[in-house]
Every structure is written in structure tokens, then in C-alpha cells.
């Protein structure tokens, strides 16, 4: 009775909505879409769980790549980190052969199960890159319907270029590591048509070229710079993290296209035409003074945690207590006298007795360089002070210059190529004598380049592509592995002529989470690498 009277007024009360969070409608304004365009790219996973570029990407995803490239090692079982880069076997100087009782490929595939997300190396990169792709699909869905103020076309085009660039980036990462994938341009949906990694790379290039064409069409630089200045977090906009002009943006695109090419063809399979394309792209790539896409640490409201949100900060510190430790094989690539080495590393022996027979190390990565003993102007790999750590998201000047060097050396312009190597060394303050003009042979020049790539591009997420295209990760019977490796035995004995047979999976299987929930349609390519 009382109730029946009360009920009519009650019904309106029921629609409480969610008063705390904005809905997609709030993203359909100029400020809203900018907030979405920025937030769905720079996205500390600590804030919302998954997706985009944050701790999970810079720490874990790039961490796997650096592990597989034998730049670092880990004894910690979280995320299967301690297993993904255990070689098939090592032969020590005295002939002792230690074998991995659970070979990498088998281990990775045991963990490629839906109930093993936490230890499935195949999962995080797939998940974060498709989340990034989906956010960009959402932006492209919304952007044309939004009423912008002022120069509407430039604003729309800037956001479109932004979206296509990040889609291009997402497909670049996916195509460079997965055996197969999905091309998906529909928001919050998917399709079961799996394509090859080469098709993913083609899709990456297509998106990059779309972005490039849009950028070329923008005339109103001031409006473009203003929108970009809102998309890139303010604390990132220091040094060469500042907003790139349209031309700089296009050069960033060219460098990423160059990487797409170089990373996905075995060195031995590169054709003259490939080298020529590479030369063309890198010649129009990132210059020493160009602004690039970076993430920078911050004291609060960060993209990644200053103390442990990226690979270098997870490596720096007492080896017994850090997530990652420095690999002896990284250290042995430094040329004697390289100031980058003396600034960033000191001796601090750590014996790993719990698996990973190549993981013991004599070296510690310093936080903020050693300012007391070897203070010099070389690049600092790790600086945990908030605001000081720079992480390159896509290409960098050094990467572009070394790709150019490689194209030059392989097209007969050895000395020009070596000059590029010298450029990089100078840029990073290596303090090494120039190698150009020293008359190095082709093989010596290639070796100089190889070592420089390992040193200069460490922690930048490209080292595994190198290890793969150089063939190092393959089985010795297929020309892989490496000799003269420095290995500190678990007993503390130092080996310098060790043979390591990595025998890693080159391109990764599609994660089970995708295959089970989105089974391949007829006509799809295989989702499992036959290797």
C-alpha cells in the first residue's frame, strides 16, 4: 500500500549510471578525443591493467626481447623470465657440455595455454599491441564525427596521422615477432582470418604510409604542433622527446619502415634491392636533431615506473637483488676503452646456481652511471631518478644511422658506412677512435657494425630482431649459435671460448588466448611456427 505509492517515484531512482567514469560520449568532443588519443597510447598498466605502452610493455615485452638477445638474464620465475632464454646447451672451455633439460621451444609452447597467461611469453606483446590497434580504430571511428574548433581539417588530420602511426607501430611489432596475425580495422571486434607476419608488416607499412601522406598534407603547422603537444604528455616533451614537426614525424615513419624491412629478412637473404630500399628509407630517416617518440619517467602520474618500469631500471643494481642481470655476452661486445662501458658497468660477481647455466655474471649495471670513478660524457643506460630515464618507443637517430651504415657497407660504401658507425659512437660519447678511414675489410666493417648495434641499441627492443636475422638464435646445425662466448660458470670459473647453442623459436606462435577464442577461419595461414 505505502509501497505502491512509493514505487512510481522510485523507478526514476533506478537509473544510477556510473557517476565516476566518463563514457564514450565524453570522448566525442575535441578535448575528449585528445584525452582518448593520448591516454590509450601512453598508458601505465599500473593504472588500468592492460593495453597500450606502460610498465607492462617497457618492462616485460621489451624485457623478453632483451632476454632472447642475451643482453640480460633473469633467475626469477615470474613471467617465465628465467626459462625463455636458456640455451639448448653450452660447451665450456674444458669441453664440459651442459644441456637444457627443458628446451626453449618446448618450454614456450607448454606455457602457451590460456591458463598460463602469467608465464606465456607469447601473450603480452600480442595483447598490448592489439589493444593499441583497437584504441586507434576507435579514434578513427570517432574523429570524423567530432566538431572541432578552428582549423578542423588540420586537427582531424593530426589525430588521424597519430592513429595510423600507432597502428603502423602495432603491426610492426606484431609482424616482427609473430608467425601469424590478424589485420583488424574494426573497433572492439575481430575476425578469424589469420595472415602471415609478412602481411602484417605490409599492413604496418600501409598504415605508416597513410600517416605519412596525411602529414604531408598538413599546412597549418601551428595547429598541428598544438594538437601534438596535447597528445604527447608534457613530461615527455624534453630533449628530443619534444613534439616532432610534420617533417620529423615523417622521418620517424621512414625509420620504422626501414626497421620493418631489415628486421624481417635474414642477413644472408638480403638482396641488393633490399639494401637499396633500406638506404633510401634511412636517408630520409631520423636525423641527429630530430625529435622522436619516447617515454620518459616521471615522479607521479607516470607512463612507466622510474625505479622498475623499463628493462634498464630492472637491470641496474646489485645483481643478487635485481630482476634482470647483465649478460657476459653483452659486455664482451664492448670495444676496450669504450666510455659507455666504464660509465655504466662495474664488476660485481653473481653466481646463478638455480638454472640458466649461462646466466652468471661478473657485471653490474649502474644506476645513473658511475659518477665517482669513471665520470665521462657517455650515454647513461639507466637513471632511476624520476624524469631522467628515456625509453625509445620506435626508432631513434642511432638506429637509423646504424641501419644506414649497414646499407652502405653492404652496397660497397664501407667507409661511408663506418662513418655512420662513428657518428653513433660520437653521439653516445663512446670516446673511441674513428673506424672510418682505417681501411677495414668488409668482414671487419660488418663486425664493427654488429658490435655497435649490440652496444648502442641495447634496451631498445630491437636486439632480438638482430639476433634472429644474424642467425645466432638458430641451432648450430643450421648455422646458428655462437663461439668464443664469455661464460661465467656456476662454479665461478670464467670461460672465454665457450660455444653456446641457443636454438630459439624465431617467430612466435599466436598465443592460445587468441587461437582458442578466435579459431582460424578456413584460408587462414598456420598459427603455429613449424620450426
Amino acid at each position, binding site marked *: 500500500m505505502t509501497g505502491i505509492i512509493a514505487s512510481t517515484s522510485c523507478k526514476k531512482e533506478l537509473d544510477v549510471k556510473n557517476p565516476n567514469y566518463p563514457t564514450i560520449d565524453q570522448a566525442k568532443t575535441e578535448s575528449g578525443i585528445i584525452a582518448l588519443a593520448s591516454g590509450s597510447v601512453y598508458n601505465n598498466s599500473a593504472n588500468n591493467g592492460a593495453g597500450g605502452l606502460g610498465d607492462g610493455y617497457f618492462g616485460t615485452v621489451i624485457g623478453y626481447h632483451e632476454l632472447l638477445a642475451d643482453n640480460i638474464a633473469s633467475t626469477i620465475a615470474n613471467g617465465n623470465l628465467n626459462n625463455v632464454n636458456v640455451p639448448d646447451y653450452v660447451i665450456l672451455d674444458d669441453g664440459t657440455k651442459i644441456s637444457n633439460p627443458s628446451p626453449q621451444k618446448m618450454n614456450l609452447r607448454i606455457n602457451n595455454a590460456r591458463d598460463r597467461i602469467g608465464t606465456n611469453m607469447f601473450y603480452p606483446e600480442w*595483447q598490448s599491441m592489439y589493444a593499441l590497434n583497437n584504441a586507434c580504430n576507435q579514434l578513427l571511428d570517432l574523429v570524423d564525427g567530432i566538431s572541432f574548433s578552428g582549423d578542423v581539417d588540420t586537427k582531424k588530420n593530426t589525430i588521424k596521422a597519430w592513429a595510423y602511426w600507432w597502428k603502423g607501430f602495432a603491426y610492426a611489432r606484431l609482424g616482427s615477432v609473430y608467425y601469424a596475425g590478424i589485420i583488424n580495422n574494426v573497433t572492439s571486434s575481430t575476425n578469424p582470418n589469420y595472415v602471415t607476419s609478412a602481411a602484417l608488416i605490409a599492413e604496418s607499412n600501409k598504415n605508416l604510409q597513410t600517416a605519412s601522406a596525411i602529414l604531408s598534407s598538413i599546412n597549418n603547422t601551428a595547429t598541428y604542433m598544438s594538437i601534438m603537444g596535447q597528445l604527447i604528455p608534457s613530461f615527455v616533451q624534453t630533449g628530443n622527446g619534444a613534439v616532432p614537426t610534420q617533417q620529423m614525424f615523417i622521418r620517424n615513419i621512414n625509420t620504422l619502415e626501414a626497421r620493418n624491412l631489415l628486421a624481417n629478412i635474414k642477413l644472408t637473404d638480403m638482396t641488393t634491392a633490399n639494401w637499396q630500399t633500406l638506404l633510401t628509407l634511412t636517408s630520409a630517416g631520423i636525423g641527429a636533431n630530430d625529435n622522436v617518440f619516447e617515454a620518459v619517467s616521471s615522479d607521479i602520474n607516470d607512463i612507466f615506473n622510474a625505479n622498475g618500469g623499463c628493462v634498464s631500471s630492472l637491470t641496474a643494481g646489485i645483481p643478487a637483488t635485481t630482476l634482470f642481470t647483465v649478460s657476459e655476452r653483452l659486455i664482451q661486445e664492448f670495444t676496450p676503452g669504450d666510455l659507455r662501458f666504464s660509465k655504466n658497468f662495474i664488476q660485481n660477481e653473481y653466481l646463478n646456481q638455480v638454472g640458466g647455466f649461462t646466466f652468471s655474471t661478473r657485471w653490474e649495471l649502474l644506476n645513473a652511471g658511475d659518477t665517482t670513478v669513471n665520470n665521462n660524457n657517455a650515454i647513461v643506460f639507466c637513471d632511476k631518478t624520476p624524469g631522467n630515464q628515456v625509453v625509445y618507443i620506435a626508432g631513434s637517430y642511432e638506429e637509423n644511422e646504424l641501419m644506414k651504415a649497414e646499407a652502405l657497407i653492404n652496397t660497397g660504401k664501407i667507409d661511408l658506412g663506418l662513418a655512420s658507425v662513428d657518428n653513433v659512437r660520437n653521439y653516445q660519447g663512446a670516446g673511441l677512435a674513428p673506424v672510418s678511414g682505417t681501411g677495414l675489410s668488409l668482414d671487419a666493417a660488418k663486425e664493427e657494425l654488429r658490435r655497435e648495434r649490440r652496444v648502442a641499441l641495447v634496451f631498445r627492443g630491437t636486439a632480438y630482431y638482430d639476433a634472429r636475422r644474424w642467425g645466432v638464435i638458430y641451432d648450430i646445425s643450421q648455422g646458428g649459435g655462437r663461439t668464443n662466448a664469455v661464460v661465467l660458470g656456476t662454479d665461478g670459473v670464467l670461460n672465454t671460448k665457450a660455444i653456446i647453442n641457443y636454438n630459439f623459436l624465431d617467430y612466435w606462435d599466436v598465443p592460445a588466448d587468441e587461437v582458442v577464442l578466435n579459431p582460424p577461419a578456413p584460408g587462414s595461414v598456420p598459427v603455429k611456427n613449424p620450426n
Partner: protein
Amino acid sequence: MKKNLRRSIFFLLLLLAGSFVCAQTRIVRGIVTSKDNGEPMPGVSVVVKGTSFGTETSEQGKFLLRLTAGANTLVFSYIGYQTVEFPVDTGNNIHIILIPELKQLIDVVVTGTGVATRKARLGISVETVSGTDLAETPQGTIDEGLIGKIPGAQISSVDGTPGATTNIVLRGINTVQGSTSPMILVDGVESGSLDIGSLDPAAVDHIEVVQGAAASTIYGAQGANGVIQIFTKKGQLGKTKVDIASSVSASTYLNISDVHEAHLSSYATNANGKFINSNGDVITLDPYGTYQGVNWAYGADANNPTAMSNPLNIAHQQYGTNLKYYDHFAQLFKTADNYNNSVAISGANNSSDYSFDISNNHQESNIRNNGYTDRTNLTTNLGIELFKGFTVRSITQLVYTKSTINPFFTQGRNNIGAAIMSAPFDNFDQKLPDGTYPGVLGALPGADAGFNPNYVTEYSNAIVNRVTILENIQADYRINKFIDLNAKYGISYGKGEETVIFQNQTENINTTQYSSWIAFYNGNDATGEIDNYNFNNTFQNFIASAVIKTDFKKDFHLNAPIMTSTLIEFDHRKSYDTQLFAYGIGLPIYPIYNFQQTTSQSVFSDQKIPFVTYGYVVNQKIDFGEYGGLAGGFRSDYSSAFGEGSKPFTFPDINAYIRPSSFNFWSKQKLTNIIPEFKLRAAYGEAGIQPGAFDRYPTLIPSNVGSSLVFSLPPAENNANLNVEVSKEFEAGTDIEIKGWSGSWLTDINLSGTYWTRKSSNVIFGISVAPSTGGTTIKTNAIDLASHGVQASATITVYRAKDFNWNFTTNFSNETSEITKVAGPPIILTSGAGDTQEELVAGRKIGQIYGYKALTSLSEKNQEGVPYILPANYGQYTMVDGRVVNIATKGIQFTNELYPLGDPNPKFNTSFINRFDYKTLSFGFQFDWVYGSHLYNQTKEWQYRDGISEDYDKPVDIAGTTAAYTAYYRSAYADVFDARNGGRNGTKDYFYEDASFLRLRNIYIGYDFSKLLNSKVFKRALLTLSGRNILTFTKYTGFDPEVSSGTSNSTFDRGVDDQSMPNIKSYQLGMNLAF
């Protein structure tokens, strides 16, 4: 409600008495007193046996009755007391002493029926517990006190931290994303902001419990987990009564199986027995307070991938040289003191009653330097009859709780991990030169070292203050004998604030050396932080009801023994939560800790959670004399949490009972002397569980990046089309009273049993979506569950004599829940057991743990039928403890495929409660037996990782060679078949243990020495000595078989012991004075 009922019966009796006036023959007078306290008892029903003629005792406990010829037996009854039949053939001035019931026979219940109903006339099962049952033993909270006392309920004390919540399961698992917690009502309204653990046990009169949908339909879309209703004490007619209770107890942590760290080790030592590093240097305490460089004596070699898998490492006595052995549990734990004090004042006259109760409960943590929880309750219950038939009642609860438990040692934070994970040679009490503690202790190779608990309590602290008020106003108007109108309005408001401080740790040299500090949000550096959590809740519950009762015989003079009662109810609930979580990072070195001192600040969460639901209940009950009855109705609910359009959801119920013992064929036979009561009952009902407040609203996620507010797409998506989860239940049961022997032994036996079966459909969970969509999960009505079980109880008066009584109760519960449908592929859930996750798969039990099984025969095959070991290689293996072990590597052989290891939930749980009364001495004890439960001993598995489990000390015989092989034990942690060291932290049946236990839950002895005082002042002076959890029998090898590390009241994460704080055992001395 009950009072009104009594009053109406009283009037009725007076009317009837008038009509008998002419037949009077003689007068009987008397007094009724309580065995409990010797006080006169007002309001006791005195009825001539076989008639409805009688009276009630007066304020002074006296009565006067004019008896007709042939009336020779009087029946004295009072709620909560044993009914007494007294022959009055001769004397006419009698003294009756009523004895409190052990339990169960709280005669009239309202929970689940909405209308006060005698238990004898219920078609559903309603359990009752009297407040006196909670009083005798040293528990701080009502829910702890309920353990073992409710047949059918599984209530477990899963964490020994002061203030920790219990896990309550009433009849199976009905949901997945939500919890198993039942709805809590206090005096008829939902308690809202006030959780059961913060209510004052001393203020409880009695508790009613309905467990399943069949009975909780009238609670509609929120009732599927059952309802626990708490009734606070009211003043009783008579003089003002003052009750003072005070107790002190001392508690220690339980370590049933003597868990300790390995006394032996197999580390590298030099010829003098001193521990050395890989360079052969003797290990010393470094300037940072740590021992670095400990290694196993034998490293990895060509045959063994790790040092720990090298069979040459054999544990032997090593500590005592440069490294000592420290008992970390002795260093971590202490004996804690707890105090309880309460004062209650109550009384009543014919038109009003009052009860005031103030109490304080103070519980220290059993972890050193780790604070306490303190709770103060003020409860008042005032009733007044304003005019005839119209009564108003006000019940107020004011609760203040304060907790200073360290944020790292609260419930569910892996409380004792530090002590378990630290190497035995680490000394928690070791200080740095400046007097501070080192945080990072010595690291074992490959292990992340335990963090020094002394560092934690030195640099962090928390204060939680919480004030809750619950005001409940009720008006009841009995218009005439047909209609009773009732309105209740309850409003509760809870305000809590938690401040957590992590001091600036930058001056601690251990911290800077190892770049390792404690913080929740400041992962950047060791400068500390201050966190402030503010949470408020306002909850309103308005219930208006009309009860229409008719009695065809009396009201309409029809010759049909039909009585009807009709309930029409409107129930409106509105909740409003607000939360503001903010933190500031970077505190100064000087000890001023507030937001102004921080270098930057951020808001982590600022949320408002409105929730509105309302519903109508219509229930019709028809009773056919004493023979039986039928009831049915429905509840229709609207809710802000329902799917699109907010359409109502309707839940029907029907129940019936029949009492064969009331039919002539029974009552006229001798059978009635043996079995005076035999009732059969059956009920069907539906009830629901609502989606979460915003589960149906898709949103973006806002966050701050730098100085900008940005949006991102949520990986876990909401779903506008969610429906309520519906649980449908059928129950059938019986209640039987058996008169035993006529002498003193087994005079009275009450049996009650119920079988129930239920199906839950549309259970909500965030099911996985293909990651290429950009998301990870979407909430869906994805799961169906089914459960069934049996609950039973027996209450037996074992022995009854003039000065001695022995009562015995046993409660039994068995239940099992399984998944019957899952939409799409298996749903993956995380639990704390090893590296594998739980899966929800149709046909399997919920809560099942999956893992690798040790091979138990050489010929074992994998799931594809391929043998693990070829017959040619049988010679390489032997059996140890029933498991296949490789003779060369000493490793236990585990499958490399996952199998369900079993359902960790108990097969049954049962309790045995005994109470003995001899004159003014009382003695009692309760045993709880939980059978067939399992725990995944993850605590032990972590200790296996680092070689510091006590098991590593134990020699094993492997094919005739006996030694404490490190490799043998390490294999249980690290190996799966064909992958030595490739199955680290794999979930293994090796660690899945039987956690059945028999526990002496409580034992007490009380002596009332008021008579000795020879004073009229004290009505009672009771001294009680009691103990809780003082004996446990179990095969479980961890600290305590009752713990669970999963989220409190999790539906699926229930069978894991991952560094949980064990329960405590305590001894209490209490004094209770009444005057």
C-alpha cells in the same frame, strides 16, 4: 514482534479466562525463576496442559491461576528455556525453575517468513542460536562465535589477524564474481554499513539463519547467499538489571605441525666448517647487515642443470660457525593480550522496556610491534507502547573501531611470508650501526629474500578509524485481531579513514645499497609516502508490512481448523558509498607525516557508488489446525543493478509442512509418548544475486598522465544486457522430538534434518574475449552451478537430575557445488596455488586445483596413452614414499600434463557441543570436525624453492642409499617429467594436502559464587575460565589446517595456504557480575 504476539495471546487468554469463570474450583499460586541467574522471570507462559487456558507471570515472576476440575498439569514455557510440565494435583504454592535451552528451541522465528511463526509451523528450515551460546567463549566477534553452531553452515576462521573476517558458506557456491557472504540483518533491517564482525556479541539476544533460496525468497534479488539475522537484547519486565562482564585473555599463534626452517644445509664451507663464497672467502656480515655469497657446495655440472639438483649436495649440520641458526617464528611472533569489558543495564515495565549495552574489545596482534584492533560498541534498545496496540521501538548501534595493524600484516597480505622466506641464518633482530634495521637480509642464490619484518614495522604504520551508526526505528500497530501494520526504517552510516605512512627510508644504508624499500605507490624511490583512504557508506532500508491473520474457528465461527496469515510487504533499500583514495609521495626525514610535507600528490580513486533496489512481497500462509500448513508467494524486485530497462525480477516460493504426530492415529497411540513431535516439510524458492553496481555501464577509464587527464579503453568490458543471477532451491526436511527414557538419561532428543538441492543460473563472470578485439574480458551471464547437501542436528538432553544437567548438540553439514555450464571455452581464474590457474569447466567442482601429479608407478601413461618411462629404463628408477624417483638424479618424477588434483572443500563438517551444569558450576566444550578438506601448501612450496623447508633435513632412502638429498626435495618444486628445473613453482600434488581436522574449538568452566558472597547485591557472580582452539588433530603439515589465503569469502579461491597468518589459541579468564 514477539512481544506483541505475547501480548495478543495474553489478551486472548484473558478473554477465554472470563468464559471459564463459572467453572473454577481452586487457586494455584507460584513463582518462576531462572536457573541462569536465580532471578524471577516475568512473562513466562503458564498454561493448563491440553487447553489454551492459562496466564503469564507478573513483573515479579509470580502467577495466580484458577484451575477447573481435571486440570492437573501446568505447562511453563518461555523463549529460550526448556518447557516444564508440573503436576499440581496437591500443592497450591509452587516454585518453578526454568533451565535455559542449549539451543534450537527459540520457539518463534521471523527470518525467512516475515511473520512471526512458531517453529513447529514452519515449512522451511530456520536455524537459531541464542546469545548465551556466544557468551561463554573467548571470541571477539559474532561470526567467530557462530562457527559450528549452525547445522549446514560452513563458517571458518581463515586468518588469525585481529579483525580478520571469517569465510561463511551457507548451502553451496551460488556465484563466482561475488562472494559467499550472506545478507546480514539486524532487528529486521539490513545492517548496511555495519558488518557482522563489528557487532557486539554481548548485545545479542539471539540469531536466526535461513540458508538458501527456498527460505530467502522474501529477500529477493539479494537473498541467494542466505540471511543471518541478529536480534539485540531487549529489557525484560522486572527490576533494573545491571550486568558487568570483564575478561582478559592471552593468545599465541598456532603451529600445529611444528613448522620450522631447516636446521641443516648443504652450502659450501671450508675445512673449518665456515661458510664460504665462490672465491673461498669466509662469509661475514657486510656493512649493510647482510650475509652475501652463500652457495651450494656443488654447482651445476654436465649432468645437473642447477646446484640444487646436484645429488652431491646433502644436508648436514653446518650452522653455528660463522652463520648461526635463528628461529624466525620466535623472532616474529609474540603472546598477545586481549581484553573485553561490557556493562549492560536493562529493565521494563508494562508499557516500555529499555536496554543499554556498552562494551569494549581490545585485541593485540600476535606479531611483534604490530598494533592492535580496538572496538567499542554502544547498543540501546528502547520500546514503548504509546497507546493500545501501538508500539514504537528504537534500536541504536554505535560502533567505533580503531586498528593500528601494520599494512603488511593485515588479512590476506601474506602475513608470515617474511619469516618463511628468509634464510635460517638471517637475524631479524640484527641492527645496522645507526640502530635501524636492514630490510633486505642475506639473499640465497636465486631467491628473492624475505623482507625483515622489523624493518617493516620500523618504517611503516597504519591507523584505521571507523565509526558506524545504525539507527532502527520501528512502529507496530495492531489495529485489531486481524490486521497488524508494521514499519521499519533503518539507516546506517559508516565513516572510515585509513592513513598509511611509509617513512622516508633513504638514510638506511641497506635500503640504498639494495635499492629496495617498502611502499604501496612510491615505486620511484625510498622517500616514502602517505596514503589516505576515506570510505563512507550510507545505507537505508525501509520496510512496510501488513500482516492479516484470520482464524476461521474463532473469527468466523466456522467449523474448520484453518488459520491464515497474509504478508504484504514493501522493501526499499538504498546504498550510497563514497571512496576517496589519495596519496602523496616523498616524505621528509623529520617525523612530520602529512600531505603538506610530501613532494607530490595524486588521487588514486574517487568513486561514488549509488545502489537502489526495492521490491514487493506477497506471501500467503494457511495452517490447518496443528496438522499442517501451506505457504507460498513471491517477491518482485526492481534494482539499479539489473539489466537494461530495469524490468522487475520476480522470485516465487512455496512450502508446506505436515505434522503426522498431531493426527489422531498418532496422538491417540502410545507413539506420541515416544515421539511427541514429528514434522515433515518441503519448500521450493528462488532468490537472486545482483550484478555489481556498475557492471552494466560501459565506460572509459580516466587517469592522469603528467598534468593531463586522459581516457583509455577498459580491457575488461561491462555489459548492458546483464541479468540477475538466479538460484532455485528445493529443500525437504523433518523435525522430530523423541522422548527418551523416563529416568534421568536421554530424556529428550530433538532431531532435525534437511536435504537441499539448488541450481544457480546466469551466474556472472568476465569471460575472456580474443585479445585481437583490444579487450580481455566481457561480463556475461556465463555460468550455471548446481549444489546439494544435507544439514542435520541433534539436541539431546543426555542427563537430567535435580542438580545436574548434561546437554549435547551435534550439528552436521555436507555440501558440494559443481559447474554445470560454461558459455564458451573454460573460464580461467587465478588462485595462489603454484603456477597453474583454476579453470571453470562444466562437470567439474568449483574451486578445483589443477596440477602435476607425481608418478606412482613405472608404467604410468600420459593423457595420450604414451608411457612416461620405457620398460628398458625401469632400472633407472625406484619408489620413494609411493612416488617414482630417478636413482641418478634423486628427482621425483612428475607428469608434465595437468590433472585436477581435487576439490579442496570439505566432504562434511560437524560439531559436537557439550554442556554440563552442576548447581552453580557449569562446564562445556565444543569440538569441530572438518573432514575431507584440502589445502595447497604453497607456503611449503616456497620454502622448497629455497631449500629452507624443514623437510630438507630428512634423509630419504633412494635405492638403498640414505641421505638428505637437496636434489630430492628441490625436484618437488622444480621438476616436471623430461624437464628438470623446467617446472619451477609448478602446482604439484606433492603440496596438495589433506587438511581435515578435529579441533577443540572452545572449552570453559564457570562458577557462580554469588551464593557464597552471602549478599543480596549480586544476582550472579560468575567466574569463567575458557580456552579457544587449544587442541587440534590433523595430518596437515602447515601451521593451521583452517586457514585460506584466498580473498575473503571468495567463491573459488578457498583451498590455498600461501603464507597465511594462522589462527590463535587463547586462554581467557572472565568475570560476570549481575545485580
